[in-house]
């Protein structure tokens, strides 16, 4: 039976993150990096320069004056946002490959992932007053392990999906039976390999876990809550599998229902604004 690590080794021969993303993540992890360092990395990639300027001048930010220099753009959007943008771009290319089937669709998973990313960032910022960039990153990456499985052990992955669909049980259990590991472990290992913040990998690892103790404001709690809301809105990653919510998070939603209702009402607008950035196609997963 393969482990998460051995799947990743095979996956990395097929697809890696862009070099620029890895360099930016290294700079982010290095406390001594200056803005000038970030600027230098970006300037080496002309496509990225154009992309950053396009993003910062898009209607998403609604600026009155056009920003034309890369240094001002980096200051404005922030380095973590920039890293998220580049990661999303790289992910989009990964999600686009391969054909979609009735059982599993990368397009559907992409819509789901962007939705969970946006919702996680909203929860972090609007409920807890915390920066939402890491929450966004967790959200957009939380199911990346499925892409690795689909790419490397497709037959076993489809067997797991079929078993979960027909016999019930959690997708994670069925993946362990059919593949020997699951998308949470694979995704978490990938986050470690990409040297993403430690909390991101932990949240990816536990996003399907049934936990009796989980803080709603932790990245794990935020991603599980966001996945529940987005799936209920019709952007479920897989057909016929109900979203999971740990008991403390269900209690938290019940106690703060007006906060979550308000948040959910604003999600379609936020997703519409993100459409320009993430080039999402119209339509829901279901």
């Amino acid at each position: 039976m393969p482990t998460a690590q051995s799947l990743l080794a095979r996956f990395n021969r097929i697809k890696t993150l862009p070099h620029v993303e890895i360099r930016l993540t290294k700079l982010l992890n290095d406390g001594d990096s200056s803005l000038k360092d970030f600027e230098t990395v970006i300037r080496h990639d002309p496509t990225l320069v154009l992309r950053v300027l396009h993003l910062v001048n898009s209607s998403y930010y609604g600026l009155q004056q056009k920003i034309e220099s890369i240094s001002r753009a980096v200051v404005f959007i922030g380095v973590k946002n920039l890293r998220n943008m580049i990661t999303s771009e790289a992910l989009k290319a990964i999600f686009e490959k391969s054909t979609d089937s009735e059982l599993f669709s990368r397009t559907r998973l992409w819509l789901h992932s962007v939705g969970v990313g946006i919702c996680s960032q909203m929860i972090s910022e609007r409920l807890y007053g915390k920066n939402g960039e890491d929450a966004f990153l967790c959200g957009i990456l939380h199911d990346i392990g499925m892409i690795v499985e689909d790419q490397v052990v497709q037959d076993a992955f489809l067997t797991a999906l079929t078993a979960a669909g027909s016999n019930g049980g959690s997708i994670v259990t069925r993946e362990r039976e059919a593949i020997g590991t699951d998308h949470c472990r694979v995704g978490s290992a990938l986050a470690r390999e990409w040297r993403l913040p430690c909390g991101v990998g932990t949240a990816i690892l536990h996003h399907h876990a049934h936990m009796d103790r989980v803080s709603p404001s932790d990245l794990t709690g935020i991603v599980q809550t966001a996945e529940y809301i987005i799936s209920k809105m019709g952007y479920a990653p897989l057909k016929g599998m109900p979203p999971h919510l740990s008991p403390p998070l269900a209690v938290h939603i019940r106690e703060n229902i007006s906060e979550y209702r308000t948040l959910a009402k604003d999600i379609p607008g936020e997703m519409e604004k993100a459409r320009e950035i993430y080039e999402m196609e119209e339509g829901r997963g279901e």
Partner: protein
Amino acid sequence: MGSDPLNHIFSEFDDRGEDARALVAHLKKGMRNILFHARTNSGLSVGDAFPFPETVMDRLVERARAADTAVHCRVPGAGPVQALPVKEPAAVLVFAPEAPDEAVRLPAEIGERISLHIRLFLMERALETERAHLLVQKKQFRRKLRALEKRHL
């Protein structure tokens, strides 16, 4: 909670009888001397106790639901009783005079009055929901602003 299409997201966290209870309270405030009872489509019963067995109530509710219009009957000891299906909140509303008397009749225009009261109730609820939404949204935007300020400091 109104007809917002996003409401189903949190439907499992809703107090299912809340809307029906609020409607019954609203009707009782506006129309005195009448007993009101609501049976929601999910089977919850809220409101006044009626002076007749539950089985009579069950039959009346079923008849109104099947006919999808108001049904009338006269129950011994309770006088004239009517059951009216309501779309929102999804329920059947049963009403009868508070002091049962064989000679008592419900006013001819009672169905119309109740419909107007329900419309008023729904509009007030929608207004209240929107007001609450704006207040929470304002609070959330303040928190988000705090987060953005921290990022740029």
